[in-house]
Every structure is written in structure tokens, then in C-alpha cells.
């Protein structure tokens, strides 16, 4: 049986299972296991199922276990815990009160503040998932309680979370740098302007959204005195202090971006207890929430990792790239085709998995056209980030969903993301058409 065929059938099977409400993790892992089993069983040409049991179970186990057995990914439960503890220590409420008071006159101001907050958080976190889960925990419930439209409240943080990998530090840029032997520090610098452009794009979306539907972002009514503003800003000091300590700590050489997660949690917990706003029971409840939320995120991420390993066996990726190369397209068609490939893979697979599967094939192709690899890196990361918010498998969307629970169904979040996706496509085209946007900073430093 042909591997490519098995691969295509598998993609369709995932869509089919998701459509009939099979939990995402089970659909991905189940299809991957069956598909890998078929490939191993047909290895010799004849169907030999007994030879497929051991490799299939080994592939499923090792990809699951190795994903969670990770020092670097400890950043995710810690940042999730940060969101929950900060909420219970009333630190997030203070930020929100300040945002509400200061941004009262701006329609959709709090959604905009959330997106800007995501941009700020991106500077201390290398992972989009960590970004979405922390900011999602802090912002989404507050916006919902303020009467924001459910789609706006959830989609803005799901989209804002994708800034995490464009703005340095960034795990995705590190992996890209390893695969292409390009300078990781140049890649980091190259991501800054496109990251800020994406941020501006998201703000524009919110601005237009709220202008068209003012009811989706209820404005704060009533008078606010200057004293109230000062008071609100002052009450938010723990958050501001935390941010300064963390950014200063990372860039001042006191701790790594991974360690920053633990330091943040320690500081927030300490502040909460000292201010007598965090109780032991609240602290423990926050940790239980963290446990459940982290597990449901990791279950999907692990299943996606297993699916990537199965797709590697099928040879689908080289088949697609081979088809593109065979057509000998001009540069514009090539880049268009590459964008479509990444968007298509991004519907199902996780960013790291896509890079591992495609970069060994893409990079020589891109180089043969004489294109700049730093710029191409920014294009790829932007494409992968878009994949985090596209259906059916959008990790950032699932992260936000695990925060807001059943109050906002997944499809509502996806439908809210449509506007953000359209601006993302526009930003992507600008990044692709204007390499200087990416290369200005790295090549002038």
C-alpha cells in the first residue's frame, strides 16, 4: 500500500472523526496508531500484522513520553499556573481595573489591552502556547464578565497568543536556526518588526470590529476622576513590577526564559500571600485547575506529535514538495505554493512537527532560488503561527477553550478568529512582499 495514500486517507479520517465529536486527542492518536500500524504491517509488501505491533506501540509511546518528559516545556504548566494564581491573588483584576479605567473612552479598549499584553508577554516567553494560556487565563474571563462578545473576548487572546513566537525569545526560531544553520540572534531580530506589524493588525481588527458592532464591547459608563485613575494604576503595581523583574532578569543575565516561568510563579505567589489576597485554599485550587488544563493541552500536543511521526512514515511531505519542485515555478508561484503547503499542514499539525517534516526539503529549494533564509524563516514562523488558529486543529484555540470551558464552544472561537485570520493573511503578504521589513534590523545591527 502506498504511504502517500495512507497519509491522505489519514487526514480525511481525522476530519471525519472530529466532525462526529470524537475528542481531538483521541482522533489524532487513534488515526496515527492505525496508520502507522498499516505502514509497518505492509513493510515487506505482504500484510504481516504481527510485525507491526511492536513498532507501532513504541512510536506512540516514545513520542508521547518524550514530549512531556521535558525540562523546557515545564514553562507551560508554570505559566498556566501563573495565570490561575495571579487571578486568585487578584493581581489580574487590578490590571483589568486599571485597563478599564484608563481605556474607558476607547471602544474595545480592553480587548486591545489584552492583545498588547500578549505582545508584552511574548518578550518573556518563547512559546505561543504558554502565551495564549497565561494571557487567556488573565484576559478572557475578565472580558466575558465585562459583557464582551464571546467571540471577541476569546478570539483576541487566541490571536494575540500567536505573537509569542514572532517576538523574541522564540523556540520556533531556535529550531528553524538549527535546521538552516542561520544565526538565531539574527532570526530573533528579524521577527521584531513583523511581530509588531501583526500586533498592529490585530488592534486594527478589534477597532473595526467594535466600530461595526459597538454592542460587542460595552463601554464603561459613568465619570472617572483623575484620582480614580491614579488609584487604579497604583493598585496594578504588582503586575508592572513583576513584568520589569522578569524582563530585566532574562535580558540582564539572571535567569533563562525557561527559568523565568518559575520565578514569575514564585513572585506572584509570594505577593499574593503577603498582600493577604491569596489563601492557601485558593492557591491549591489554582494548582488543581492548572493540572486539569495543562493535561488537556498536553494530551492534544502529544497526540499531534504522534501524528507527526506517523506522517513522517507516510512520505506525504516529500511527495507534496516534489510536486512543487517538478513544476519549476517562478519565485512568486513558488512562494505562493509554499504558503499554501504550510497553511494546509498547519490545519492539522503542530509547528515544530511541520518544521521537522518540511524544512529538510524546503530549505534547499528556497536556497536554489537565491532567497534569503532569515527572511524565509520569518515567513515560515508567521505561517506556522497562523496554523495555531486555523481549524480543525488549532492549538491556541484549544488552549483558550480549556480556559473558558464550555461557556464558549470551540466553533464560536474559530468564527471569531476569521477576521484576525484575514488580517494575518494580509500581514503575511506584506512580510513576503517586503523582505526589508524582516531584514532591516538584523542586517543593520
Amino acid at each position: 500500500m502506498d504511504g502517500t495514500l495512507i497519509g491522505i486517507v489519514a487526514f480525511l479520517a481525522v476530519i471525519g472523526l472530529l466532525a462526529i465529536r470524537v475528542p481531538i486527542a483521541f482522533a489524532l492518536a487513534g488515526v496515527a496508531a492505525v496508520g502507522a500500524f498499516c505502514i509497518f504491517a505492509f513493510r515487506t509488501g505482504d500484510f504481516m500484522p504481527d510485525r507491526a505491533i511492536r513498532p507501532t506501540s513504541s512510536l506512540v509511546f516514545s513520542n508521547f513520553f518524550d514530549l512531556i518528559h521535558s525540562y523546557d516545556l515545564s514553562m507551560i504548566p508554570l505559566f498556566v499556573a501563573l495565570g490561575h494564581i495571579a487571578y486568585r491573588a487578584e493581581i489580574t483584576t487590578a490590571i483589568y481595573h486599571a485597563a478599564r479605567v484608563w481605556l474607558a473612552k476607547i471602544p474595545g479598549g480592553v480587548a486591545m489591552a489584552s492583545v498588547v499584553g500578549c505582545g508584552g508577554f511574548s518578550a518573556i516567553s518563547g512559546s505561543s502556547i504558554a502565551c495564549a494560556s497565561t494571557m487567556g487565563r488573565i484576559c478572557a474571563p475578565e472580558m466575558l464578565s465585562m459583557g464582551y462578545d464571546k467571540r471577541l473576548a476569546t478570539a483576541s487572546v487566541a490571536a494575540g497568543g500567536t505573537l509569542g513566537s514572532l517576538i523574541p525569545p522564540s523556540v520556533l526560531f531556535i529550531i528553524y536556526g538549527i535546521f538552516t544553520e542561520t544565526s538565531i540572534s539574527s532570526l530573533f531580530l528579524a521577527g521584531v518588526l513583523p511581530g509588531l506589524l501583526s500586533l498592529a493588525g490585530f488592534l486594527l481588527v478589534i477597532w473595526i470590529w467594535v466600530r461595526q458592532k459597538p454592542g460587542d464591547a460595552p463601554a464603561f459608563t459613568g465619570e472617572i476622576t483623575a484620582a480614580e485613575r491614579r488609584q487604579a494604576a497604583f493598585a496594578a503595581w504588582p503586575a508592572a513590577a513583576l513584568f520589569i523583574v522578569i524582563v530585566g532578569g532574562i535580558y540582564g543575565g539572571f535567569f533563562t526564559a525557561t527559568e523565568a516561568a518559575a520565578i514569575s510563579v514564585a513572585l506572584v505567589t509570594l505577593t499574593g500571600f503577603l498582600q493577604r489576597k491569596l489563601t492557601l485554599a485558593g492557591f491549591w485550587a489554582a494548582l488543581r485547575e492548572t493540572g486539569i488544563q495543562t493535561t488537556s493541552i498536553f494530551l492534544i500536543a502529544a497526540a499531534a506529535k504522534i501524528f507527526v511521526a506517523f506522517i513522517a512514515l507516510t512520505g506525504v511531505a516529500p511527495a507534496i514538495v516534489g510536486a512543487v519542485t517538478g513544476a519549476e515555478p517562478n519565485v512568486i508561484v513558488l512562494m505562493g505554493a509554499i504558503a499554501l503547503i504550510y497553511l494546509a499542514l498547519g490545519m492539522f499539525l503542530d509547528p515544530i512537527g511541520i518544521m521537522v517534516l518540511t524544512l529538510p526539503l524546503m530549505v534547499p529549494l528556497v536556497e536554489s532560488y537565491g532567497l534569503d533564509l532569515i527572511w524565509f524563516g520569518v515567513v515560515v514562523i508567521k505561517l506556522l503561527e497562523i496554523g495555531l488558529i486555523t481549524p480543525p486543529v488549532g492549538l491556541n484555540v484549544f488552549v483558550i477553550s480549556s480556559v473558558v470551558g464550555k461557556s464558549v464552544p470551540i466553533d464560536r472561537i474559530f468564527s471569531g478568529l476569521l477576521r484576525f485570520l484575514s488580517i494575518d493573511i494580509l500581514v503575511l503578504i506584506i512580510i513576503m512582499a517586503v523582505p526589508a521589513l524582516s531584514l532591516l534590523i538584523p542586517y543593520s545591527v
Partner: protein
Amino acid sequence: MLRWVERFLLDLAAAAIVALGLLITASVLLRITLNSGIPDTVVMVAELMVAAIILPLAATIAARANIVVEVLSQHFPGRVQDCLVILGGVIGLLALLPLLWAGYREAASAIESGGFFFGQLNLPKWPGRVLFLFGLIVCWVRLLVQVVADMRTFARGERIDTETGTNYMQEEA
């Protein structure tokens, strides 16, 4: 009983998150203040990660916190939706089987071979693998109980409640 086990494992996972946070914080503080550190932090944190992620699996199942897409299925008749809930559970039970089998082999071989992580302390490999297997077994049993209960509800002609899973957060807090 099952409920007690789930909550106990969830609490253990919470403790693991506290432990790995403290471990990293302590190693940073020791480095900044005394220019010293804790050996093999990386290995210990990775092992604690297994506890933090795997032990709440059963509670996640009980809380019905598995993320599903309901775009299409929400338009189906109630009985069909309930069939799909059961089907999803059955697929989960099957999807976890290769993990259980390989998890058992891994745990057994880690104990048997005496495998360890290279480092300053040469910590053994078996604890994380045994925890993984243990968390997975409890999760599988929990899912089986849920699927059987759902089937019974379905057979009685009642609707399956997928909205209100066990809530572990609001119990005591």
C-alpha cells in the same frame, strides 16, 4: 473510591508542579546569591513533568475536559449525539491501548535494566516511566467506567450529561 483516587492523583500533580517550580526557583536563587546550584535539576524537573501531566489524566476524563469539536454534531438529534459521545469514549479506550502496552514494556525494562540518566547524581529512569504507566492505567479505567455509565444512561433512554463533569476546583476553595 474512584473519585477519591482521581482527586488524590490531581493533588499529587499539583504538588509536582509546586516541586518543579521550587526546584527551578531555588537553583536560580542559589546561582545568583552563592554561585552554586542544585545538581541534575533538568532531570528532576523532567521527571516531575511526567507526574504533573499524567496524574491528572483520570480527573480530566471525569471533568469531561477533553476538548471536542461540536460544529456539526450539535445539529444532530440528541440520541445521535449521545451515540457519538459513547463512540468517542470507545475510540479513546482503543487509542490508549498501544500506549498502555508500550508503557508497560518501558517501565518493566527500565526497572530490569537499571537504566539511569547520565548526570551528577545518575538518577534512575524507572520513576517517571512507572508513574506514566500508573497514571495511564487509572485514566483508562476511569474512561471505561465513564463509557459504561454513559451506555447505561443511553440504554435507559436518558440524555448523557456532557456539560457538568466533576469539578475539582470548586470543591473546597
